[in-house]
């Protein structure tokens, strides 16, 4: 007989085991889906998860996709750890990209060492401004940040759309929905000749280190955590709880904005309609798969980045729509939530006899 028993205390081991279990279950279920579709499961999974990163170029692409995921997820971990459900990172990314793109266009055909830092800073500020809307509405008007931040995603995408077809569109661009190319001084340098991986990865790594330090080592991080769990407790302890809420949103927005900067000032070098394949939403999965822990998020962003690449490979070699990538992302989250049940309950196998 199988019996489900409540754990007295979630064990530390199971806490890191369930994400691995979730990935394993995703692979099994993915294999099953491929089998039903008439492919050989192992071969299909190989195309999906191994072929894309087998060469140098593939590995660079992996890091390229993992960079924004990691950066956004780090930002989100500040919000999620303190119980603020910012799910509008996609919007903050877009708005950050708009602001930094605007600044980059101001420096059109100009050169100078100060241009790139200004553009990056503008992106971070753009993301912060956009994240401050749900934060302020939440703290002073008791609105639900989930709804506000989500709806603002679509607002920012429409603003971007308007800008790239309207006022900011390239005058010599034959009416394509895109802006002029940024000057080289406004672009993040590429790290290797012939590969698309760019200096944005250092921003992500810096974010990992800083977030770890702030959250685990500083009084500020402690206050954020407390305020997130309970504003009443924060007030009782004498913290400024509302300010903490706004602060985590700002951090989160800044990270998403930086991810936006990386997308437009990296290999692409201009603003256009589709600057992000929903990195802002996928990063939510990354944050949870990484257990909101900086190191976990690094690994999770790599795993999830593969699903983007694998989907493209699968489309090319197996004629499967690339949306399979989203199916895999969905499955990871699904199995992660399901296996989190094991955090609080354990399954006991006991003899049939009583």
């Amino acid at each position, binding site marked *: 007989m199988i019996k489900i*028993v409540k754990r007295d*205390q979630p064990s530390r081991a199971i806490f890191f085991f369930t994400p691995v279990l979730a990935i394993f279950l995703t692979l099994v279920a993915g294999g099953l889906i491929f089998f039903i579709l008439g492919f050989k499961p192992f071969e299909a999974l190989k195309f999906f998860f191994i072929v894309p990163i087998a060469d140098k170029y593939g590995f660079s692409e992996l890091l390229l996709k993992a960079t924004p995921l990691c950066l956004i997820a780090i930002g989100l971990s500040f919000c999620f750890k303190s119980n603020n459900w910012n799910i509008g990172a996609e919007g903050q990314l877009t708005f950050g990209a708009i602001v930094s793109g605007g600044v980059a266009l101001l420096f059109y055909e100009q050169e100078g060492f100060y241009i790139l830092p200004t553009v990056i800073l503008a992106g971070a500020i753009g993301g912060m401004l956009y994240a401050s809307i749900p934060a302020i509405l939440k703290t002073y008007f008791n609105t639900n940040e989930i709804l506000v931040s989500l709806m603002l995603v679509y607002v920012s995408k429409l603003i971007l759309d308007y800008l790239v077809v309207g006022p900011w569109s390239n005058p010599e661009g034959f009416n394509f929905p895109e802006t002029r190319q940024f000057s080289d001084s406004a672009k993040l340098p590429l790290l290797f000749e012939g590969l698309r991986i760019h200096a944005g990865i250092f921003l992500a790594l810096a974010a990992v280190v800083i977030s770890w330090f702030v959250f685990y080592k*500083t009084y500020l991080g*402690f206050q954020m955590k407390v305020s997130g769990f*309970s504003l*009443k*407790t924060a007030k*009782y*302890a*004498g913290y400024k709880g509302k300010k903490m809420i706004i602060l985590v949103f700002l951090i989160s927005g800044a990270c998403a904005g930086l991810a936006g900067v990386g997308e437009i000032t990296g290999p692409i070098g201009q603003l256009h309609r589709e600057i992000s394949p929903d990195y802002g939403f996928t990063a939510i999965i990354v944050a949870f798969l990484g257990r909101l822990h900086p190191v976990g998020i690094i690994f999770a962003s790599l795993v999830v980045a593969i699903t983007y690449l694998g989907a493209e490979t699968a489309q090319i070699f197996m004629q499967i729509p690339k949306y399979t990538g989203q199916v895999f992302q969905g499955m990871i989250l699904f199995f992660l939530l399901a296996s989190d049940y094991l955090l609080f309950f354990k399954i006991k196998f006991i003899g049939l006899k009583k």
Partner: protein
Amino acid sequence: MNTNLKISNVTKIYPGCVANDNISLEFNSGKIYALLGENGAGKSTLVKILSGVIIPDEGKIYLNENNLKLNSPLDAKKNEIGMVFQHFNLFETLSVFENLIIDSDEQRESVREKIDAIMKKYNFSIDLDIPVLNLSAGQKQKVEIIRCLLRSPKVLIMDEPTSVLTEQETSELFLSLKKFSEEGILIIYITHKLKEVMRLCDEVAVMRRGKLVSVSEIKNENIESLANKMVGQNLKTIKKKKAKTSSDQLIKITNLNFTSEDPFETNLTEINFSVNRGECLGIAGISGNGQSELFQVLSGEIISEKNSIEFNNNYIGDLSPQERREYLMAFSPEDRLEQAAIPQMKIFENVALNNFKSSNFFNNGLINENKIKEHSKKIISDFNVNTDNIELKSQFLSGGNLQKLIIGRELITSPDLLICFNPTWGLDVGAINYIHETLIKINEQNKSIILISTDTDELLKLSDKISVIHKGKLSKIMNSEEVTSEKLGILMGGAN
């Protein structure tokens, strides 16, 4: 007609705990039965089984020899089992009458007649056409009782009915219950208050940790014997020694007012009192009369005028809680799980919530984990918190252990004044005793306490002086020897 209710071998298992372990009990009409036990003893589970809210894993229930299938609260109603829950299930904005007819399919007029008849018979006076939110707790309870009586029940179950009532309302309730019993309704009375059992009931069943410990007649028991059965160990009774009356004033509140923008909060008007060193001032009152607001004003969660609070010859009315802690004040709020501690955080992290300069918990903005852990270990051993793992999330501590941790945390500064709000609310007798002993010790060390509590017995036991808060106003301050619980009850009800 006699009613016989039999519970036979009922077992209910939850993940990680056996709430009811093979319980068998028999009740007969004409008597009032008490079901006594600490929080978590399994009383509520058993009662919910009787009222169809919970379905037992094993066991049967018989009413007059008929095996009952209670799969929903509706089944219980059909079988004439009535239940009045601790928390009222009334629609606040509907009128009393609308609340009463909501689950009835009879004609409005005939129900109204029935209600009038019931009210007349039992001497209830409630205006049927005013919204329920205008009623006092006692009146709301009467509405719930009338709702049960409308179905002429054979069994009436009362779950901790006096927790929200004043002394007078309690007496009225007891009179009604005795009347119902005389008329042949079987009454099961659930409580953890020993005095009430002695006063009201004929037979008592004691539960402890899911098991039935004893069934006996009240005349063979006394408060001590019942307490021992309930807790399972011999309790020593605590007595507070009379404090040496000092005239050394520690805190003085002058003309303190608080007007809230929130309609659900109570305004405080003209609060004046002072507390001397080594003294415990008790503040009694029915919950919702401004206790929470008073606590927040004293702790600094609500800022008031600078001169309204004088502490140790400093004016501190405009200081934040953290700044007040530096002046050696400490606070233990009412809500352990939502305010005083964070259940999802580890024990030592919860200790760091009481941050004061000399603690060195945080240096230059960085967390000094060693210092916090060192302090946490000390609190755990000094205050008997039943764990040795300070990395444990505090949600895994029982209410009593968590409260000990909180009090311990607040006392590490060895504060001159501890302000606590319902410090033993919802705790079991063992933990209550421990907290009471600790509070008495504080007074013996010539430190002071402001004890805001809704538990009159606790106040009478611990306080040197007592005042009553009613609708945001304090009564005059009385010496606790001159006060009886009856007198407090009158003041709590708003009379002078």
